[in-house]
Structure formats: C-alpha cells, structure tokens
C-alpha cells in the first residue's frame, strides 16, 4: 500500500487535477475585446453549444464517424485475428504480427499524407481505376476519406485485443461443440463470438476514443465539412484564445466516453485487456 502511494498520487495529480481544471474553466468566459479570461461563473458556453446547430452537427459527426470506424475495424480485425490465433502456424503468426505492427513504426502524419496521395484526383486510386476503365472516384477531402484513414490507422489497436481474446478460447470448447453436432457457423455464433466479445469491446474502446479525440486526420484528409470536436477545441485555444469554450466542448467527448466505458465494463471488456 505504501509502495503504491507515490504512483497513485502522481496519477491523481496529472489526470484528475487536469480534468478538474478543465471542468472548472468551462464555466468561465472570455472578454470579447481583450480575450482575457473572466472568472465569473456562468453556463453561457454550454448554452452556445446547445443553441448553435453547428456545434451539434460537429459533435454528431465526430461520434458518428468514430462509431463507423469502430465497426469497420471490428469487421476487418475479426477474421484477421482469428486466422492469426487459430489457423496460422507459429512462424506465419510471427510474420503477421510484424505486419500488423509495422505501420506503427512510421509516423502517424506520414500515414495520413500517404492516404492523401492515394486518394487525390491525380492519385494512385484514380490512376488504377482509369487503367481498368472505371470512372474517377472523388473521395479525396471528404468525410469518406476521413473514415478510411481512421479505419486504417487504428486497425492494429483492434486486432491485438481481439487476437488476445480468441487465443484464450480453449480448444476443448470447440471440440465439445463439434462433438455435440454444431456446424462451423453455429460454433462461431454460439461459442467463438461470445468469448471474443470482450476483446472486440476492448478494441473498440481504443478505436472509438482515439477517433473521438483526434483532430489531425480531419484537418489533413477532410474536406469543407469535416470539422471534429477536436478541431473546434484546437481553434478555440490556439486561434481565438477562448479556453473556457474549448473546455466546455471538451466535456462532450468526456461524457460520451464515460457512458461508453460503463457499457464496456458490463460487457466484460476490462477482463480482456
């Protein structure tokens, strides 16, 4: 207990204190002319967030794309992780591990810029489409591009926990299922999926929260209607010097994540991590 005290204290100071500071400053405001923070309690920031439809749109877009990215990654990761955990031999498994982790060795920014090169008007995608006689795709600088890039960059964070969950399923359960006459699909549905669910939920915490808090990908890959909550927070602080409003908007993803984590705990995600 005594040994735990220093790290706990540091944790409390770094995480909780900054959260408290965030919540408190959300109830202050900024003088329009001098942009100095006015320390008078009010809920104007939250009222603006509620009244202005633009901020609702931005919040819903952020949550919507985060959800889409999570589902996409889950669908892509499951068969891949299943192959890694239960089909591939040790050598091939090691190779696949390296392949999954390889993108993480390069800079996040490089990977986003590479997608710009692939998707843009004169890029690799349209070049390839042209070769096979298909019309150009107009994906660059749209929310579809944002969705694709996010799904790509967060995929490893979904594969690893799902792999962990699948690997832990005892062979005896699958054999028992087969002995009792269940075919492959029924076994998948009744045995594998329920046991893999905590892994999927654990992975979804990563993909969902990472997307929810990001602002670089929407900035670089997004188009004229691609602002995320993070972009508004960033421009409120760095551009308009309006820290209270940024803090108020930052409480939205915080609340969303709190709800998400409560549901995740119910589904047993924390045991799979």
């Amino acid at each position, binding site marked *: 207990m005594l040994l735990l005290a220093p790290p706990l204290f540091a944790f409390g100071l770094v995480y909780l204190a900054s959260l408290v500071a965030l919540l408190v400053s959300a109830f202050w405001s900024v003088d*329009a002319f001098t*942009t100095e923070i006015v320390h008078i309690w009010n809920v104007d920031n939250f009222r603006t967030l509620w009244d202005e439809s633009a901020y609702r749109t931005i919040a819903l877009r952020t949550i919507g794309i985060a959800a889409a990215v999570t589902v996409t990654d889950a669908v892509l990761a499951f068969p891949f992780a299943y192959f890694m955990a239960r089909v591939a031999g040790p050598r091939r498994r090691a190779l696949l591990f390296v392949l999954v982790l390889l993108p993480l060795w390069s800079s996040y920014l490089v990977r986003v810029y590479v997608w710009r090169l692939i998707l*843009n008007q004169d890029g690799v995608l349209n070049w390839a489409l042209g070769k096979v006689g298909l019309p150009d795709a*107009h994906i660059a600088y749209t929310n579809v591009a944002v969705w694709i890039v996010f799904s790509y960059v967060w995929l490893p964070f979904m594969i690893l926990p799902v792999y962990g969950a699948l690997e832990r399923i005892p062979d005896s359960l699958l054999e028992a299922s087969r002995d009792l006459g269940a075919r492959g699909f029924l076994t998948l549905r009744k045995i594998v999926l329920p046991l893999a669910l905590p892994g999927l939920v654990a992975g979804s915490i990563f993909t969902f929260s990472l997307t929810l808090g990001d602002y670089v990908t929407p900035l670089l890959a997004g188009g004229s209607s691609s*602002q995320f909550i993070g972009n508004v927070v960033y421009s409120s602080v760095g551009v308009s010097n309006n820290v209270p409003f940024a803090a108020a908007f930052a409480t939205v993803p915080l609340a969303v994540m709190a709800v998400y984590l409560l549901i995740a705990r119910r589904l047993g995600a924390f045991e799979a991590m």
Partner: protein
Amino acid sequence: MRGIRRTRVLAAAVTAALCVPAAGVGSGQGLPTSIGKGEGQLNLIAWEGYTQPQWVKPFQKSTGCTVHAKYAGSSDEMVTLMRSGGGSQYDMVSASGDASLRLIYGKDVQPVNPALIPDYKNFIPALKSPPHNTVGGKHYGISLQWGPNTLLYNTAKVKSKPTSWAAIYDAKYKGKVTVPDNPIQIADAALYLSKAQAGLGIKDPYELNEKQFAAAVALLKKQKPLIKKYWALASDEIDLFKNGDAVIGASWPYQTNTLKAAKVPVADVIPKEGATGWADTWMLSAKAKHPNCAYKWMQWVSTPKVQAQQAISFGETPANLKACAWMDKLAKGTCAQYHANAPTAYFNSIRFWKTPVADCGNGKKDCMDYTKWQQAWTQLKG
C-alpha cells in the same frame, strides 16, 4: 482570482525592472531618442520565412543580438502568443493588419520612434503611418512588406482568364474551389459584394453592419458546396493544385511562384473588384525585455538589401522603395515581378487586412466585431 493578482504583480515587477537599468530605450516614459547597447538576445514571433539565415546571421554578427524566432501559423495565433506568459516572453511580432489593431487596443504593444529608423524616410508614403499600425498619431511599429491575396487558377482547366471574383462563387467549378480557412475570408466575400450588389452599400469590406455581414456570410454559405477544401497552410493549397483537386481559388503570390517552379500550369490575377491583402508590421511588445536589440532589428530589416532579400524569398513587396534596385541585382526582373516599383494605383487597389471592430467610425458602433466574424466562420464550416 489568484491568477490575475499574480499577473499584475509580475507585470509591475517587469515594468520596474525595465525602468531601473540605464538602457537607451526605456519604456513607459515617452519615446526613446537613442538606441543603447544591445541586450544580447531578441525573441521574435514571425511568419514562417521572415527570419531566414541570410539576413538573420549578419544581424547577429554585427549587433551581438541572438535571434530566437517562433513561427506562428495565423494572425490569431500571433495575438495569442503575444499574450501568453504575461506578455514579456516575446519582444517583437511581425503582425499583419488583422492582428495589429487587436494588439494595440489590447495594450500588448508599445509605440516606437520612427526617427530612430533611418530607412523609414524611404518607405512608400502609404506605409509610413497606415491606419493598421498608427493610432492617434502614435506609431506602434515599423511597416515591413505587403502583398495581395490573388485569384489563382489552373490555366489548363480554366480556359478563359477570370476577371472577377465571381469565379470562386461559380457553380461551374463545383468541388474544384479552395479558399483560406480564415475568418478574414468574409472580407473577400464582402469585397465582391461591394461591386456585385452595390445596393448593400459596402464601403469597406472590414466594416460591415449586420445586414451587409449577413449577405457576405450567405454568399459564403452558397459557396461552401463548391469548396474542395478550406486551406490552412500554403502547402495545402499547393498540394490541391498540384494534384488536380482544385483548379481555382484565393491565394498568395507565394503559392503561384512555388507552383510555377514545379511546372504546374497556373496563373494569378487581381480581379476587377480589387483584392484584399496583407501589410505586415514589426511591432514591439509592451513588456519587451530586449528593446535595444528590437530597435536594431527594425533598423536592419528596413535596409534596402534585407528588404529585397525578404521580398524575393517570400514573394511579396517591400515597404522600402530603395529595395527595387537591390531586387534586380539579386535576381533580375524581380522588382517588377513583385511590384516593388509599382505605382500607387496598385497599392490602392488592395484592401489591406485589418481587425474588424464594432466602432468602425460611422458613429453608430454597429459594425460586426472580430468575435462575430470568428463565430460565423466556425458555424459556416460546421
């Protein structure tokens, strides 16, 4: 509350510290009449490209002032940086007109004495006491360089040379238009409307009453479906034009030069409505710790050769008329290319960025201030 009190104490301490030493440049008691010995350091907030080694190195060598530059990406960021850390962290900022008034009225910068800058007398008359850095006869800084926001287009895709800003609001270029991600873009819409809808009575694109402002924002809302991307960095726009994602848009001469150098078929034009533009000023922080080095810097960057170097390096027009000869010496033809010998008519065709304020001189204080511009821009992008 404690935060405020501490800042005040700190501010008082800094002011006291500045008054005590027998420095040549003192702040707070009138303008200095001579420049003392350099303090050895100079902390700058600058646009990227404004502190290149080719003119910073000789400055450091001759004055002993070591330059520390922090690049800012936008005018708003410059204002925020100047106010961070109590305001004494940076000595100077290369503020554009849309930041300079905010800094003056926010008391973040102090008046300077142009008599201490020998090259000041060679500046084009319009930049000696421009309204964006001179208030009530006091000079809050020394003008540096200026340039227009141009209409950039791909000559292979846009067949006939556009002559009006109407081109960037034209549905014919749907999904191929790009404009800066900057609230001041509302002024570009207002400038176009001042000619296209004369009935609105827009005299100055930065002084808009509620009705005029609403009309400009409505035009930008109509433009939004045509926009491929609102560009934040010059390199973003260069990418868009290089890769065929945009064929027309609002730009700076810098992008045109870079794209031409990369053999992309582009040209730029100042349309018949005129153009918005920037005029930058080196401003001195109200709590500058190194005022002598700051004055030496203002002297240095105003000299014809340094003015010419910066103009060519960045692609803008120097304030110093004597820079023209140096520009042609450094790179033949650049004086005419960057309008350093331009007639006053060219200067007058540009409506320079300035901070929109509520009290816009019509006595009614009914203009939309910059906070409104920022809000409208955020909501427009949505």
